[in-house]
């Protein structure tokens, strides 16, 4: 397996052995290879450096490199596991793993908590939820009276903030999500189940023996 890796590794920093990545995620080796095809196309779309930067991420999501979005930024930051301002292949696969239908609920709940904890304090504060709500209204061009926004926030915190300290901690989030499982629907991408059908060209570039698949 050694010499096949070197060309991919040189052009694609962070390119890990597909067999290793498969063993540590919900993906099969073939699925990791199919994800690599996707990764190649996203990471090479603007700068051919084998890495996904913020603009390339925005381009892939919105078909518009300049489109800024609070939530897409959060996702990017969480995918950028090593906080370097870009996503490498290993980051890509390990982060997408959480969105696989077979990934554990704990991982999904964990990711969603971090997602909404905008300033990474370990708590989802009321002010942060308000900020996210306003961002959503803005992006959808919807208008709500400030009073209505406060009513929605009140209701949400009444339900989620059990100890009434104005913020949602990890345990409260766990409990809240168990009572409202639809909140996790954003954490599953059915596309990931059919990834080998969506990117069949991995067959030509496969680095792995038949036996391993």
């Amino acid at each position, binding site marked *: 397996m050694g010499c096949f890796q070197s060309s991919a590794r040189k052009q694609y920093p962070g390119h890990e052995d597909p067999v290793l990545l498969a063993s540590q995620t919900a993906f099969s080796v073939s699925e990791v290879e199919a994800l690599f095809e996707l990764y190649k196309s996203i990471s090479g779309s603007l700068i051919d450096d084998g890495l996904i930067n913020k603009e390339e991420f925005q381009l*892939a999501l919105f*078909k518009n490199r300049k489109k800024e*979005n609070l*939530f*897409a930024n959060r996702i990017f930051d969480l995918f950028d596991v090593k906080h370097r301002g870009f996503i490498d292949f290993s980051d890509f696969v390990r982060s997408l793993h959480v969105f696989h239908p077979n990934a554990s609920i704990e991982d999904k709940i964990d990711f969603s908590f971090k997602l909404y904890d905008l300033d990474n304090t370990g708590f989802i504060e009321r002010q942060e939820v308000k900020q996210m709500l306003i961002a959503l209204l803005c992006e*959808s061009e919807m208008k709500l009276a400030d009073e209505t926004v406060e009513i929605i926030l009140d209701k949400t915190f009444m339900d*989620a903030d059990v100890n009434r300290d104005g913020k949602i901690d990890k345990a409260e989030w766990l409990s809240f999500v168990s009572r409202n499982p639809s909140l996790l629907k954003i954490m599953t*991408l059915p*596309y990931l189940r059919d990834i080998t059908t969506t990117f069949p060209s991995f067959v030509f570039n496969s680095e792995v023996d038949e036996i391993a698949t």
Partner: protein
Amino acid sequence: MYKKIYKGEFRCPRWMSSDLKRFLTRLLDTNPKTRITIDDIMQDPWLTKGGLQHVRAFPRDHEEEDISSSPMELEPPSDTTPALNAFDLISFSSGLDLSGLFDDSYNPVEDGELFISADSPEKIMRKIQDFANKEEMRLVRKKKEWGWGMELQAGGKGNLVMGIQLNRLTDELVVTEVRRRGGDSASYDDLWNSKLRPQLLLIDNDSAASA
């Protein structure tokens, strides 16, 4: 295995009938020009032999079930239907929809819209039903844990599928999400932006702001 798929190499077990083997060979033809078409599939002897009358050709959402495909029953609003909380609303953001990574033709901003109205859910659903009848589209109710879900399906317009989801936000307000789930963007754009949207957004967002 994937290399065999690419080459179209496969073997049929002995218990398969010759009709079935023939059908599979037509399906697994690696040449898209000679491969069996959907119309031919529906008429293939192996399929029709068992009396299979009609094969659905509409794309389906993994998580939802059809409830009814006949003229939609407009249920009275259930008082126990909980309203959306802040995070439910936030979940609608296009920035949290990673589908675009996998689907080149999908654009969460253009292929979906969210709006608030002070209309009752029944009124909105009635307008949608009227629209479906006028445009000769099929309206299918979808099972949802709360709120009301449905799909507008138009086989004739390039298998266009429009998903519509209604949820109560407050006592006065309802949030509606409309999303393209199948078919091409141009047909969706025509049907939604030019035809259905103007009818559903008769009450503009400003009056919702004062509700």
